[in-house]
């Protein structure tokens, strides 16, 4: 047993190193004065020069602002739609069209983005021809496109949370006189809220991060942050992008650390409460 353990643990360490070396290298070189990755300009480094370049680049800032607005709207709408779909799939048993809904909520997760992007653009073009809307490609079309593929992820998260949810709680609420809608609002939703929030964060990240679909459905004049980054990096390494990467990793890492610490705190408090109850056993 120990030999097996050693092999897989080594693999784990190697794998984690593999995962993090690129990230760490970007962070390190964001402070390098020289453009060249191989040359650590010790005389002038570490420097915040590239952060300055980044934050004064209007193209980047405008794109970031657009991405932010789109991501917030898309995440919120996806979460609502995804929660509805997840609830329907987890709680409604068999209904007409269920398999279709299942297919439509799982396929976008694996669908290659070029296909999703192409199909959505063609939809918008056809709509434009048919009813005159959307007038042009821009923030609206990007948001609509993002909602459509993000919602599938939220559906999966909510559905799996509901599958593991104790249904007797919902039955008890019904038994006490609450109609299904009330049951959902007062019992189910509060208890699955962590999963719903996780879904929102997931949708936000996917939207914020999306490149391919945005490229298809964005018009001239609206570029999302990934689009701007992509055009920069096609030409090679760009240190201000390293700075951006560092900023993003820091935000995410601190968010994750805060969440983890908070959850552990809650867990500890629960355990303590349960122990106290058991000790005062009546």
């Amino acid at each position, binding site marked *: 047993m120990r030999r097996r353990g050693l092999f897989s643990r080594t693999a784990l360490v190697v794998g984690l190193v593999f995962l993090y070396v690129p990230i760490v290298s970007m962070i390190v070189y964001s402070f390098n004065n020289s453009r060249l990755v191989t040359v650590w300009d010790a005389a002038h480094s570490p420097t915040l020069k590239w952060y300055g370049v980044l934050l004064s680049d209007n193209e980047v800032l405008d794109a970031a602002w657009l991405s932010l607005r789109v991501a917030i709207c898309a995440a919120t709408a996806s979460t609502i739609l995804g929660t509805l779909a997840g609830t329907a799939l987890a709680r409604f048993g068999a209904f007409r069209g269920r398999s279709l809904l299942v297919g439509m909520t799982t396929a976008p997760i694996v669908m290659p983005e070029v296909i999703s992007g192409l199909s959505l653009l063609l939809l918008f073009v056809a709509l434009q021809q048919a009813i005159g809307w959307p007038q042009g490609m821009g923030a609206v079309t990007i948001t609509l496109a993002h909602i459509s593929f993000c919602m599938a992820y939220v559906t999966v998260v909510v559905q799996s949370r509901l599958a593991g949810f*104790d249904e*007797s*709680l919902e*039955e*008890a*609420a*019904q*038994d*006490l*006189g*609450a*109609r299904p809608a*009330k049951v959902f609002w*007062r*019992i189910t939703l*509060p*208890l699955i809220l962590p999963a719903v929030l996780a879904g929102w964060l997931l949708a936000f990240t996917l939207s914020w991060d999306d490149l391919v679909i945005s490229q298809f459905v964005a018009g001239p004049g609206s570029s999302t942050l990934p689009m701007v980054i992509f055009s920069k990096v096609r030409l090679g390494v760009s240190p201000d992008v390293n700075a951006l990467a560092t900023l993003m990793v820091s935000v995410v890492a601190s968010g994750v650390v805060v969440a983890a610490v908070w959850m552990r705190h809650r867990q500890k408090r*629960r355990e303590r*409460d*349960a122990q*106290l*109850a*058991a000790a*005062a*056993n*009546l």
Partner: protein
Amino acid sequence: MNAQPSTPADAAAPYIRLQAVSKKFGEFAAVDTVSLEIRRGEIFCLLGGSGSGKTTLLRMLAGFETPSAGSIYIDGEDMSAVPPYERPINMMFQSYALFPHMNVEKNVAFGLEQERLGRPEIRRRVAEILELVEMSPYAGRKPHQLSGGQRQRVALARALAKRPKLLLLDEPLAALDRKLRERTQFELLNIQERLGVTFIVVTHDQEEAMTLATRMGVMDRGQIVQVGTPAEIYESPVNRFVADFIGSVNLLEGRVAALGADELTISCDSAGCTIRAGRQVECAPGDTVWAAIRPEKIVLASEGSAAETHAENRVRGKVREVAYMGDVSICLVEIDSGKTFRVTLPNRSGIAAQRDLRHATVTLSWETESPVILTR
């Protein structure tokens, strides 16, 4: 101390009526054409093993399952189209199902809030019911801060807060340890008597059923096999399944040898004896019947007269095993024909006397009134 119906005047009125109710899952009938009447104010226990359909039946009463056939009437009203949140029934779940994100007070108040009562009224009723189950000091606690027994009381309070016509209890004592179970049994009886609520209890535990029930129904494979008071079911089972399911029993198969006006005689080869019993059932000479004799009704004596074959209501055998239970001892006696009898002896003279029994040759006998004759 067994329960008595709390309102004898209403004891005759059927309050809950199930009429040929069935529930099928595909081809499998979990509940098969069950008809049942339950009276107001009584405590009715549905007793059965796992898979007997008792829980499905309970869920149909609560409204969580729709019958495949048949109707359910509560106080004269047909419940077929009525969803669970509109039925005058409340249920105490086996897992208690307390809302983890609400404290005790809010849990209990939940049902009252659905009735749109005013805040002061709700608070008063919550305080009242918490007082009844002795959980007032814990009103601010959350479920995970309570022990198992405390949670159960909160679940009971929550179900009773709405003063339902009918309370359904799903294995209420299953999760409790022995001492707590006994205490809770009596507390339940107490509360039922004070409030006059009709109880329907589902359980697999005979002791629980015998203690709580004013009447009980034994279920097997989706059907109700027998309904009656605990005494009726124990003393007069209708078939071998019920006889064997409740308590222990010795079943002797034989043929009807003679039929008299008040008695019948059974020739029993498996036990090597003749059984004379009071006439209880319709049968004809030559029919195959079973005599069910409870272990506590058998008299055990050290070997007396010389062995007789086919003696009446008497067999001879050797004690194979004695299990000392404290209050009683259970003896397994192997008789000459090879069959094993189970005999329960009160430990009047203590363990020493029981020890002497082992491997002793003894005579087992019983009264004419003791066997219950079963035709199926």
